[in-house]
């Protein structure tokens, strides 16, 4: 599944410009160190963090997209930095638990 297909399937809102990519797994964490240590290239990163430092963290480990859950407001400087790096910042009003359930239901599992 690609980022664009995921947006349609789950009803996410794309906040940034991005390169469409194949999603190869899911990583759920609200700690940047956890992401830097454990996320894999192509993973979908699910978090409630919205500070712009999520962009270089996402870029460092080459995630396919970042989904901000629980309807959190994403600051404009985060979106602008994501635009610069072509990283997808997607938003969902669902709590993390429910969103991850939907992702699992779509067959998106970490290999």
């Amino acid at each position, binding site marked *: 599944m690609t980022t664009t297909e995921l947006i349609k399937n789950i009803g996410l809102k794309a906040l940034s410009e991005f*390169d469409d990519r194949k999603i190869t797994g899911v990583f759920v964490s*609200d*700690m*940047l*160190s*956890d992401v*830097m*240590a454990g996320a*894999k*290239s*192509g993973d979908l990163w699910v978090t*409630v*963090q*919205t*500070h*712009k*430092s999520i962009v*270089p*963290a996402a*870029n*460092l*480990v*080459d995630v396919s997209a970042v989904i901000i859950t629980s309807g959190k407001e994403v*600051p404009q400087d985060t979106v602008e930095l994501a635009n610069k*790096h072509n990283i997808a910042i997607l938003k969902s009003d669902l709590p993390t638990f429910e969103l991850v359930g939907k992702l699992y239901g779509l067959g998106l599992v970490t290999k």
Partner: protein
Amino acid sequence: MPECQHLWEMINIQFGFVVFEKCSHCNGLRTYFSPKDHPIVGDAYLEGEHTWRCMENAQSFQFDLRCAKCNRVEKYDDFMGFLYCTGCLPDCQVDIIQKKLETQKTWVLVAFSFFPRKEKDSFSPERLKILEDYFNQRRDTSRSRVAILSYDLIEDFSRCKGEFIHDVGMLSLEPPKERKPLL
């Protein structure tokens, strides 16, 4: 014997906190890694001529790298974290290099060791290369790459508005929207 084409993996991962302390007399900064599972809090304390006060606890991690082919281990217990350049100083070498590499889809991060800085604490070019190789081996480099620079390229930390990739304010219900400058 041909040289090993290293394939690096992260080992000895330990989560903890990078503690930022400032001396209220000389304004000196020092940082260190605490492997405890809670932030260091407390009053200012006297140590020699210094009175240290904790400015920030940043949730972070430490690690080493090991080659999966030859088992060579490269330790990074002096690694404090990565800083990303915000382009605040147009004459800064980091920003100059960053602007040049961005056109080649290469994203720049600055590797820091702990404060106070000592000459011998600088990351050697080889160690920086290993760190860079590891993160590039983790990604699809046909799309983009990362370049890791030494903090030596930053001439004046007091003017730098770069931001560290670590978590602050983890004890609050909402992640902080603004971060206070730490350098």
